[in-house]
């Protein structure tokens, strides 16, 4: 029991991200409304970003901006220890991922609007019904 709690506490970020991802995935597959699916999609992507950021976290370290860096780069002489700073790589990747997410969002919304203009509804089953009766 104790070590179970240990595990839960030690990795709770991961549990939460998995929960969020399941929520998003469920919304994308099971929801009937196109915009709801898009919301789910964004939750899904954000969950993955959360996962990456969690991988980058480091206990007892500070944000990845060098302290003595201000001023000219002669300050590079100051010796820098890796343990003092959070791992920057996941942050970089996730900046990209966020931008990709918003790009996808834009395209998805544009498509949803086109669909709405055509079928005058956002509910998938109603759209399919309209297509069938055509």
């Amino acid at each position: 029991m104790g070590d179970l709690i240990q595990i839960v506490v030690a990795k709770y970020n991961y549990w939460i991200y998995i929960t969020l991802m399941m929520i998003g995935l469920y919304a994308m597959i099971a929801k009937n409304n196109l915009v709801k699916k898009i919301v789910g999609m964004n939750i899904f992507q954000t969950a993955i970003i959360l996962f990456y950021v969690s991988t980058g976290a480091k206990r007892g370290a500070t944000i990845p901006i060098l302290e003595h860096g201000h001023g000219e780069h002669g300050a590079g002489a100051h010796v820098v220890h890796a343990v003092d700073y959070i791992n920057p790589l996941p942050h970089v990747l996730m900046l990209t991922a966020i931008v990709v997410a918003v790009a996808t969002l834009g395209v998805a919304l544009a498509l949803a609007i086109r669909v709405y203009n055509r079928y005058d509804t956002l509910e998938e089953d109603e759209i399919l019904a309209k297509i069938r009766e055509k």
Partner: protein
Amino acid sequence: MSQQYPALLVIVPLLSALVISAAGWINKRLCFPIAVAALGVAAYSSIGLLLRVLDEGAIVYRLGGWDPPMGIAYYVDHLNGLVLAVVSVVAFLNLIASKKSIELELPDKTAPFYALYVLQVTGLLGIVATGDAFNLYVLLEITALSGYAMLAMGKDRAQLSTLNYLYMGTIGACFYLLGVGYLYIVTGSLNMVDIANILPSLYESKAVLGAFIICLVGVWVKMAFFPLHAWLPNAYTHGPSAASSLIAPLVTKVMIYVMIRLILTVFTPEFAFNILAISKPIVWLACIAIFMGAILALAERNLKKMLTYIIVAEVGYMVGGAWLGNRAGMTGAILHIVNDALMTLCAFLVVSNIAYKLKGYAFDDIKGLVRKMPFTMGALVIGALSIIGVPPTCGFFSKWYLISGAIQASQYAFMVALLFSSLVNVVLFFRVIEICYYEPFSDDGAHGHGPPSEPMAEAPLTMLVPLFIVAAGLVLVGIYTGDIVNKIIEFAIPQGIV
């Protein structure tokens, strides 16, 4: 300059895509020449790159001058050298062929369409060339987004089916990203070769297994591997002909390439074939994919949609071949990437010629079409023979390798599936041929007796010439299969696989 081929290959299309979209606001007629020039350069440098690889083996190009794994690097070996050449050449031919149909179908949106087209090609080339797992994801998204935009420009239910494609595509890409994340957290690296070097100590770890499965599923969604294929047929069918004739041949094949790259380079064959015992189930899945694709294709009364289902079946070929786990199967899969790209291009160019001249491409619309467009139909026959797998067209030889791989792996179900789909293809295409050749074009023509009444109205030359080039390519590739296999694919497969 040849040192910079890997960069040129991707950068020239990117820059020119931007220039096109800007130039579109000044003068629409500038766009097409720029696009042709860009893709021409890309094709030239990809072929040059392939030749260099053949001479001096794998090439590493350090982007930003940083050594991998710090920076991002391009690894170009025989495998992606070949695929790069195919992708760029196919895109180039299709661009020339599609000019007229683009102008017909999207009169006021030509400029952004060309820009998206070139962006798509950029993304595909980048995916194939890159040696960095995360970079691959970004390029995947470029390809996906431009593809959605192009496909959604089609007629009736194009937008809806593209939206579904978008959902599925995003799921696939995100799964891939997640898998890369899992790899990153256990290895701490993103560079494929670097990961491959670190992994052997971690083969037992559940995280690596999870990463592998997630990546695989993501890629499968992207390549429409049964049962994740549901999005493909509608999306490809309703898109504009220019878009579908670019995306249908290339995107699925490039995703197959990604899968093979994951197997061969990232998670070494040792891990994929020996440590995990999942190759048999996957081959079974591939068999089901082939069967289902063939059967669903039989049910179609619409040429283009029938072809999309054939693509689903072909994906089954390649996945199964890659997962047979022996040299012959892998050779067949890689060879089939080349052949299937050409075959699909041929078939879809035929469809776009038909769409350019006729109102539709359902079976009822193409009755007796041969009198109207004989040359197009001739090309269709060649493409059909190749898809069926009749020697000496190239389709036969890749099927040859796949089947002998199946025999060596004693996966007879896969062999049966391949033969079955060949038979079904015979039925499919001879049905089409019968309709095109023997049905009276108009109902008054009494069973085509007497002189043909229909005046010939063939597609313009700019659409025919590329089609003929592709059709001839089908036969040439078939004849030179030996060289392709012995000079390129032999070296693309690591010695570990026997």
